């Protein structure tokens, strides 16, 4: 796994690769205690964190999942990993429907790096014993090689072997995040669902990790789903991008298409809000006006209409489906005005 000169991102293969992991109508809800006040206000008592999502992750690709904070990205990833029960829908892996209780081997092949390493690492285990136990349980390497393999893993994420006898709380935030990445890679998964894996890393270490992920894809065919708020990272690493808003996927496209020709007004606002090294201060209007609606009171019709600059009467009535562009089958968006002149941003 060297960072040797890698070819430029591979040209898209002629045939669409089959999906390795896919979800159909995936819905995850959280029950909330029933308060009388809430009942009087006619509020839903279940929160639909993920609301009927269809998603394909193709073998060998890197798919980015971006979107509003609280839109259900982590919940979607946890559902794909089998950590939260589904209210509806199904998940297919490698051609099979996965049951609610997964086999050991399937668990090993789908790994997740959690957003908050502080609460996802066992505080009572040193890094060395945590890795050793994992490697033993899943028979990843022979017993005699556990030590050397652990050291190699830590080396890959830029930590020395003096990390082995240390407990999670003895690390800095970024070091802890790298321990979490090493743990997920230890099981040599087929697919890695990485939830903000580089957010706490300085940009130099971040570059090391991004290059590592890129090498693992090239050399071992690792499939990746990356959740990130950093669109520069997404643009650098990912082939396709899916954008989430309030429990739904509202736009999917190849990375460059999405950034150069966004169709959903939310995606446009997201791109406009990217901080740039050259801009300073807080001039100009915010990219997206208004407050995100509560997931307990999802607006009728289009769920983005309360903040949408181009919403019309129709948007209050009809909930737009995720629709494929007539010109480009790789691009879909859930907006009535997508792929038409009416949806184009006003000039000037």
């Amino acid at each position: 796994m060297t960072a040797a000169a890698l070819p430029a991102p591979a040209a898209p293969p002629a045939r669409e690769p089959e999906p390795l992991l896919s979800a159909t109508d995936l819905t995850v809800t959280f029950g909330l205690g029933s308060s009388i006040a809430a009942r009087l206000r006619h509020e839903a008592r279940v929160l639909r964190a993920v609301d009927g999502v269809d998603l394909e992750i193709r073998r060998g690709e890197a798919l980015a999942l971006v979107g509003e904070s609280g839109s259900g990205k982590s919940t979607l990833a946890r559902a794909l990993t089998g950590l939260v029960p589904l209210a509806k829908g199904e998940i297919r892996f490698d051609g099979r429907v996965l049951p609610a209780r997964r086999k050991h081997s399937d668990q090993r092949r789908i790994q997740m790096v959690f957003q908050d390493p502080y609460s996802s690492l066992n505080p009572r285990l040193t890094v060395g014993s945590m890795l050793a136990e994992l490697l033993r349980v899943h028979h990843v390497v022979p017993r005699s090689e556990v030590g050397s393999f652990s050291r190699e893993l830590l080396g890959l994420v830029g930590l020395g072997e003096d990390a082995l006898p240390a407990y999670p709380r003895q690390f800095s935030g970024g070091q802890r995040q790298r321990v979490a990445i090493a743990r997920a890679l230890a099981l040599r998964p087929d697919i890695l669902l990485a939830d903000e894996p580089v957010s706490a890393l300085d940009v130099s270490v971040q570059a090391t990790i991004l290059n590592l992920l890129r090498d693992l894809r090239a050399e071992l065919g690792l499939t990746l789903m990356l959740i990130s708020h950093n669109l520069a990272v997404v643009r650098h690493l990912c082939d396709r991008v899916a954008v989430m808003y309030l429990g739904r996927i509202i736009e999917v496209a190849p990375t460059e298409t999405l950034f150069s020709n966004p169709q959903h007004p939310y995606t446009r606002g997201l791109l406009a809000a990217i901080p740039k090294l050259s801009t300073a201060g807080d001039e100009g209007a915010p990219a997206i006006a208004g407050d995100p609606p509560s997931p307990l009171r999802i607006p009728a019709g289009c769920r983005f209409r309360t903040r949408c600059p181009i919403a019309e009467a129709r948007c209050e009535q009809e909930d737009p489906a995720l629709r494929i562009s007539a010109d480009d089958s790789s691009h879909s968006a859930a907006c009535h005005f997508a792929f038409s002149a009416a949806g184009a941003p006003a000039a000037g």
Partner: protein
Amino acid sequence: MTGAAGTGAVGTASAGIPPAGTGPMLEVRDLHVQIASRRGLVRAVDGVSFEVVKGDALGIVGESGSGKSMTLRAILGVLPPEARITSGQVILDGQDLVPLRQSDLNRIRGPRISMIFQEPMSALNPVMRVGSQIAEGPLIHLGIGRAKAAERALELMRRVGIPDPERRYRAYPHEFSGGMRQRVMIAIALACEPEIILCDEPTTALDVTIQDQILRLLATLCRETGVSLVFVTHDLPVVAQVCQQVAVMYGGRLVESGPVREVLHDPRHPYTLGLVRSAPDFDNVRESLVPIPGSPPSLISPPEGCRFHPRCKFAEEDCLVTEPPLRLLPGGRATACLHHERCIEAIEAERAAQ
């Protein structure tokens, strides 16, 4: 700012002259923090000095593990039990906080100085409703009643962009997404209108639109209420957007400081140069990113001489023996590199090559 070149203090007054009658809001002088561990004594912060003027924002960037969070924790007096300040001063508006007892610090934390912690789950109380956690500070420190404090908490939740605050008031932290927990932390930090807020990666878990909203809120507070910020982040564009001054940390020490634009566009320390060059750029996607080669220094037995020399392409013989102090340069800048003119040459060569 006084002639502090010798102690390596860094001024943050834009023109080097603080407004008449106002000294720095916060001054950190030669701070040392050591942590006892089985592997040895970790010198997590090893002689750091800087000052922040009222209403200004100082950014701190640098290597993961270089002591940024420990510096902030030492200022607030909330170090982990195995860590302690071995020397140095933390002067808040003229008063040194280091010798104070916890009971005295409790009166300062909240109303005068507060902190947004890096990992919200580690700082929030998992069994207390988020609304009550936000209302707690005002209840204790502002001498207002329960109802008023709750009202204030709701108002704060609205300001940091938590949707549906009335409903969310009664939720527990685990029911929130990563970004919403971070907004709760921010609301807690703002709750008692402190004079200075220490921000440790305050917006990393937030999407860019909410980040934008929070950064605007912080900028407005600085401008209108004169709050000062110390802002630790890895996101260089965010530093450029929020801060006037920036300090760069490496291996427990400051290696460079100065006005944000100058430092990020025209670094005077090879570490800063490597850092700026390894950032993924949204407008310029390269095949492979270029991290700084080598690994970070041990904080238990740091390298002799300049701590960066084993990874530095400009290192010469004197770098192996002399530990370079932070020296002042023209334009309110400072660097701890003995050969900083090599950075200028490298940047000029890069520009010529384009």
